[in-house]
């Protein structure tokens, strides 16, 4: 079973050289720490920067340089700053090759819910609806089950949707799964996790074909 950093490490294997990548808040943010040495990717933050670098050294924080999670960041050589309208022009215009974001629920038809629990939690969708409606390549990074042990990979989302039919791949603490017309197709198991454990933790339709390899981390 993976921890959050493990999920990030596994997703980092999906990165390809010269890709522009948008990472959501939470687990996706950790992916930046695991980029393979032999490739170069550029991170976009939707509040208006391309070429986002690591956190600043203590004492060098700049209130005017943050990411979409409102964290202080740095700009790498070759960075560019732009306004919100231009930032979402990049996103809607499909100039970004990969979007990774968290979710509360993913359905086996690729629907995703991650912005609202009616009557209880209404933070807003931020840029998530634009990202999921626009990107061709969307990976969800999340725990397989919620804090009460309930599956987050569902037959149907119960919460208000963020986007429909948009998730291509889900990477959890238990598995890598692709969204297919027949449901979640199991691609890889996390180290030490059995197919049965994954079946147990998955409420949506699960397709298991042949031997399922363990992740190579």
């Amino acid at each position, binding site marked *: 079973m993976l921890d959050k950093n493990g999920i990030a490490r596994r997703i980092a294997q999906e990165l390809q050289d010269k890709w522009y990548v948008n990472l959501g808040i939470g687990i996706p943010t950790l992916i930046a720490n695991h980029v393979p040495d032999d490739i170069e990717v550029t991170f976009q*933050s*939707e*509040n*208006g*920067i391309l070429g986002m670098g*690591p*956190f*600043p*050294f*203590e*004492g*060098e*924080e*700049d*209130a*005017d*340089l*943050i*990411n*979409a*999670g*409102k*964290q*202080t*960041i740095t*700009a790498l050589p070759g960075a560019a*700053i*732009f*306004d*919100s*309208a231009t*930032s*979402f022009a990049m*996103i*809607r215009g499909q100039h970004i090759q990969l979007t990774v974001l968290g979710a509360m629920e993913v359905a086996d038809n690729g*629907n995703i819910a991650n912005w*609202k629990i009616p*009557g209880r939690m*209404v*933070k*807003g*969708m*931020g*840029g*998530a*609806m*634009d990202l999921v*409606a*626009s990107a061709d390549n969307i990976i969800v990074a999340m725990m397989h089950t919620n804090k009460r042990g309930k599956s987050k990979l569902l037959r149907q989302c119960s919460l*208000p*949707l*963020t*986007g*429909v*039919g948009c998730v291509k791949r889900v990477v959890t603490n238990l598995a890598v799964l692709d969204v297919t017309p027949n449901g979640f197709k199991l691609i890889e198991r996390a180290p030490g996790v059995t197919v049965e454990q994954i079946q147990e933790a998955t409420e949506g339709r699960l397709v298991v074909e042949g031997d399922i390899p363990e992740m190579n981390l």
Partner: protein
Amino acid sequence: MDKRVNSVKDAISGIENNMTLMLGGFGLCGIPENCISALVEANINGLTCISNNAGVDDFGLGLLLQKKQIRKMISSYVGENDEFERQMLSGELEVDLIPQGSLAARCYAGGAGIPAFFTPAGYGTEVAEGKEIRYFNGKPHLLEHALEADYAIVKAWKGDWDGNLIYKGTARNFNPAMAMAGKITIAEVEILVAPGELDPNAIHTPGIFVQRIFQGVNYEKRIEQRTVQAKLS
């Protein structure tokens, strides 16, 4: 074309109860601190505020929320603010949540004379309710309408008397699009210079979009998430 006003009080003069304001900023980054304080002091009520976020409990738009001066918020993300959540869940505060890219594009459209446009964001969600759907290249899109405001209030790093603005870092965010969309646009800047001192090639917001400008004071520029790494010695 000298657009300087003498004080923040002069800058916000004409803003009345029940008006619609746009306020630049992302989180607490690039927000018009001086004008927000002046709106609190002037006790203007019933405002509709279009702003990506709603500040935190004791800073930014949170200050207007505390005093219940806001009737309606139009935003994309309103976490980090307990008082906001309380007012919204209790029904005291009307809230219109909009995808962040649609919010930016609707402000831009409002300033650019584009009354409506199609975007894929929000299809199949609550956001699409009541909106026209049309397919382009086989993909569904929503018709979204331009946003305008009685006053847009933006914060820039440098400005000149003509209203030309340059922002610093990611404090740019929503400020340029909102500056375009205000019937009257007020700019507060950290450094105000005479025309000719800014490079015409480096202007982010051309002065035509700005009607009033002044140099703000005492910027706190609070950091929401101070994330750092230790220096290797």
